[in-house]
């Protein structure tokens, strides 16, 4: 899947949980889920579960540990998709 397509899909997933609209509008690879989008840390698990459902992948604990930014999320999704 192309990166742009992935970012669009990820943007749709995080939308219900964000608390900073401006940061969401300007979302890029460098966006941090908690620091920038102000996603509640308990909702980060929902983002991860939604990513698992959307892409039909399993985000293991080790990958989850790093999943704090859009960049890290994209890398994890790409890796898991390529392993399928």
């Amino acid at each position, binding site marked *: 899947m192309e990166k742009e397509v992935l970012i669009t899909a990820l943007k749709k997933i995080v939308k219900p949980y964000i608390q*900073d609209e401006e940061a969401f509008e300007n979302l890029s690879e460098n966006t941090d889920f908690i620091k920038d989008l102000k996603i509640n840390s308990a909702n980060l698990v*929902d983002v991860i579960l939604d990513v698992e459902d959307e892409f039909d992948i399993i985000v293991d604990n080790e990958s*989850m540990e790093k999943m704090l930014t859009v960049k890290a999320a994209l890398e994890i999704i790409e890796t898991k998709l390529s392993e399928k």
Partner: protein
Amino acid sequence: MIGNDLVDLKLAAKQSNWQRKGFLDKLFTPDEQGYILNSDNPFETVWLLWSMKESAYKAYLQTHNERFFAPKKLECNLISKNRGTVLINNVLFVTESEIGEAFIYTVAFTKNHENKFLTDCFRFEHLDFKNQQSQTYHKVLTAFANQLKFPVAQLKIEKNNQGVPQLFWGEMLLENSFSLTHHGNFGAFTIAF
């Protein structure tokens, strides 16, 4: 080190569905899931354990400069309903929680700060995130001004690159450990002595 975390229960019920498939498995160890499933009030226990984890993690981050999302590495142990411990990579935090109808509030501290901290909870009129953050900053700065005998106007809070708030007197970084939290209608701060 000291950390705190507050969960507005009404908002938590709206924001998260703890019964969602995978939710408990991703956040809680088998022992912690045992506390939840054997509890008279599983919903309350979910958020009690979560506030313990968050508060301890916030204290831990003050001396470990790398963020991570690994809730199961923050291992909770309940000593009583309001008191417990959280172990993070061999660092032990004691937790004290206030469990109310409207919110759960936990303070986590290393043993050397036992009974040596100040904490305050308050209710907000507005739900705006930025507004709540600035109100919380103002409260903690006022408390520091009283404690340190500095004019409040000379104190400021800035977040470091990990998002951890730090206290400055003018341009000088002060080492005082403190923590801020706000969720829904409530906010709180804690300051270690």
